[in-house]
């Protein structure tokens, strides 16, 4: 429904996302990457908040022009700090769409309607995040764009919010650095590194058998219950300005990596790495 085609995004004259083509397909789409990889910038473009300097964002096959209808159909869910601290949460939710009964919206996200009279600071982090989700759902959107919806929360609270999101029928684009979250909520995932998609494919497969060395490093860095300590490369988190941006950290880098690898299709995966087939 929503698609980025050869999109380049910049702040001022500094490009931060380069030539990204990515479609939001049914079953949830995950956008994985570390701080500074450009994932939030890409989300802003998908919300119509940032205009591509190159390429185009398509909604239903057409370039984004009528933002009024679009804003109703595509709703952002950011971290819970986006609530007005002075407004009672019931009003915050009602404001989005006065015709919808607040109580049923609150119940839909597992909140006691009796909390409607509270202000954000009188709620826990998990409850606040539920309010943000209820407010987004009020306009019955077709797509939710979720930017790190659980990363400020405790693991146990996180699990409950994930359960809530997994049960929603609305389509979703989820931006996170947490691999456990995408495996729960997204059928397809894209890994972003230094503003470029380096690997895409079905989430389960991508995490089980990563083909890009960066995806592999990401997965190996996730501690497993009772496993060995997360693998560290001992390298500074640097990116190369030319060629493959990952080559300075990559244990498999070869001279060929000074040339930027184009993404190639391998099965149902797309990988931008000269050595992908060897992995």
């Amino acid at each position, binding site marked *: 429904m929503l698609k980025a085609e050869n999109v380049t995004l910049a702040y001022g004259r500094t490009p931060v996302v380069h030539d990204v083509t990515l479609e939001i397909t049914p079953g949830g789409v995950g956008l994985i990457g*570390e*701080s500074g990889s450009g994932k939030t910038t890409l989300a802003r473009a998908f919300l119509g908040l940032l205009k591509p300097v190159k390429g185009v964002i398509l909604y239903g096959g057409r370039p984004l022009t009528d933002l009024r209808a679009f804003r109703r159909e595509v709703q952002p869910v950011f971290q819970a700090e986006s609530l007005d601290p002075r407004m009672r949460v019931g009003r915050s939710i009602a404001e989005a769409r006065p015709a919808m009964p607040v109580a049923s919206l609150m119940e839909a996200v597992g909140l006691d309607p009796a909390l409607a009279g509270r202000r954000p600071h009188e709620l826990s*982090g998990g409850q606040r995040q539920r309010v943000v989700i209820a407010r987004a759902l009020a306009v019955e959107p077709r797509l939710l764009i979720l930017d790190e919806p659980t990363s400020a929360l*405790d*693991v*146990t*609270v996180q*699990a409950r919010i994930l359960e809530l999101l997994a049960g929603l029928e609305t389509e979703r684009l989820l931006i996170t*650095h*947490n*691999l456990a979250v995408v495996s729960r909520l997204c059928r397809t995932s894209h890994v972003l590194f230094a503003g470029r998609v380096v690997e895409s494919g079905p989430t389960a497969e991508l995490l089980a058998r990563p083909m890009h060395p960066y995806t592999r*490093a*990401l997965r*190996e*860095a*996730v*501690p*497993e*219950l*009772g*496993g*060995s*300590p*997360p*693998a*560290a*490369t*001992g390298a*500074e*988190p640097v990116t190369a300005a030319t060629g493959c941006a990952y080559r300075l950290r990559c244990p498999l880098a070869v001279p060929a990596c000074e040339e930027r690898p184009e993404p190639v299709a391998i099965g149902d995966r797309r990988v931008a790495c000269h050595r992908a087939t060897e992995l």
Partner: protein
Amino acid sequence: MIEVSDLEVRYGTHVAASVPALTVRPGECVAIVGESGSGKSSTLMALLGLAEASGNVTICGVDVLRAGPRELRRLRGSKAALVMQSPQAALPPTTRLGAFMRRALKLHGVRASMEEAMRAVLLDPALLRRYPHEISGGQAQRFAIALAIALGAEVILADEPTSALDVTVQAEVIAVLQRLRAERDLAVLMVSHDLALVSTIADRIVVMKDGQVVGTLTHPYTRQELEAVFGAQG
């Protein structure tokens, strides 16, 4: 190194945490896990004399709960270092890292090589010329550890030291802590809500819930007991 018995941490009349016994020996890593409000951070604060508490706490020979302010200052600054979730926020924004470290060393009358401390945590000594906002979160966390090393810390008390970091950066910080434990016999007491992470590095895991210690696991952990902890946390 760290010896705790019958510790009770109170906020007014409310008992925030109660820890019957806890020991961390040189080179060991002990983790306290639990959800928000379980009392894990309160326990850590009490160990450095930063919360109202009763019982017995000995760190590097100092009787923390009965020590005077001077003795506590000496302990906190040099022998026992606190590493917080976001050290960047605790660094003065208008002071270069090098100037900050130099001031800390002078304050505690310690002579040490700042460059060597930086290298010990795999940081380029050139970063000493940077301001706090010019370094990344992972670098800031390693700088906090470098500062502890320069001051001659024997014990590191860390409160969620990696939970604000990306997984790959977290791996680097953890690797640095692991190496310092092995090379310098550093004792680490770490508070975390990430059971998976601590299960990979800790010698013992203390599980807290509602201010009480509900269990202590000893390495090697069985999958069953770890999953039981997960289960208990809902």
